[in-house]
């Protein structure tokens, strides 16, 4: 049978109703409504109600996750068979959780001494506090405050020369769910671009708690000055990005 599109344009106050005409049976495929909030005193839900021919309410299509703030307009589509996506609040983290730290002034690394990188600048994206707490700024180490997978990229810029050096993410009290030890990258000759880049995904357990300490070592026999940067991105827990070797 044919489809029909029933349109009502105007500015009437809600509710508006459509009565199925005589000797007709219809199945609704979709409804689109443009709401204008002129003076609602509180938040509200867009809704469609189905009323039987005996004037009994048979159902209401509304979604608590689709709440309109008082004073806001809304373009709302009602579709059969859709399921509202889970909100970000149901995940342990925001997807965009990020903490970036850097060492912009040169840091002197004494030969033969494993040295924590001393960060002197930082930036963050919303939700970063869910990884390591809201006070994590230039912290080293960082400490997990919630169970999390965190994607990490560490870059260390070294003076060009051939000598033994490494950059490492020392993991303390690692999560038993994804034990990868402490990732390390090591060169005995000057690497391309005179920099070492180390990436890892580390699962953290707040009950231990798991810590991550970015640190470096060099064995050139003389002091070396470095700069460095690191990015932490959290991803929702329960998404296994890594298989332990």
């Amino acid at each position, binding site marked *: 049978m044919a489809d029909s599109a029933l*349109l009502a344009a105007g500015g009437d106050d809600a509710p*508006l109703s459509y009565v199925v005409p005589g000797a007709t049976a219809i*199945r609704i495929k979709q409804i689109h409504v443009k709401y204008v909030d002129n003076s609602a005193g509180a938040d*509200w839900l867009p*809704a469609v109600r189905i009323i039987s021919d005996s004037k009994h309410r048979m159902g209401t299509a509304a979604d608590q996750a689709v709440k309109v703030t008082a004073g806001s307009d809304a373009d709302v589509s009602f579709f059969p*068979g859709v399921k509202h996506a889970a909100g970000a609040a149901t995940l342990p983290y925001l997807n965009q959780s990020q903490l970036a730290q850097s060492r912009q002034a040169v840091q002197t690394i004494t030969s033969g001494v494993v040295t924590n990188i001393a960060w002197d600048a930082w930036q963050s994206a919303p939700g970063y506090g869910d990884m390591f707490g809201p006070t994590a700024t230039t912290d080293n180490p960082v400490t997990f405050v919630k169970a999390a997978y965190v994607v990490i990229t560490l870059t260390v810029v070294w003076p060009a020369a051939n000598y033994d050096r490494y950059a490492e993410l020392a993991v303390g009290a690692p999560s038993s769910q994804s034990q990868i030890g402490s990732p390390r990258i090591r060169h005995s000759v000057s690497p391309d671009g005179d920099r070492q880049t180390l990436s890892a995904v580390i699962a953290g357990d707040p009950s231990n708690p798991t810590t991550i300490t970015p640190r470096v070592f060099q064995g050139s026999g003389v002091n070396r000055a470095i700069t460095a940067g690191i990015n932490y991105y959290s991803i929702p827990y329960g998404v296994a990005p890594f298989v332990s070797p």
Partner: protein
Amino acid sequence: MAQPLTVAFPPNLVLTDGWLVTITAIDPVTGALVSGVTISEALMQVEVLEGAGGYALSSGAFMFVPGPGA
């Protein structure tokens, strides 16, 4: 700018003569109708299962009328 939103709707719900589809705004807690909300446009796509001679149903502002509580 209006918020673009999507709400689930019962599938395969067949409505017959005299049934009513009411577009409204309700209180999130009580379910009561909320005043102060205007509908500037409503568009409903339906599959005509019976009647109307296989032709499209009439359309227009007159098809939607203020319902109870308006």
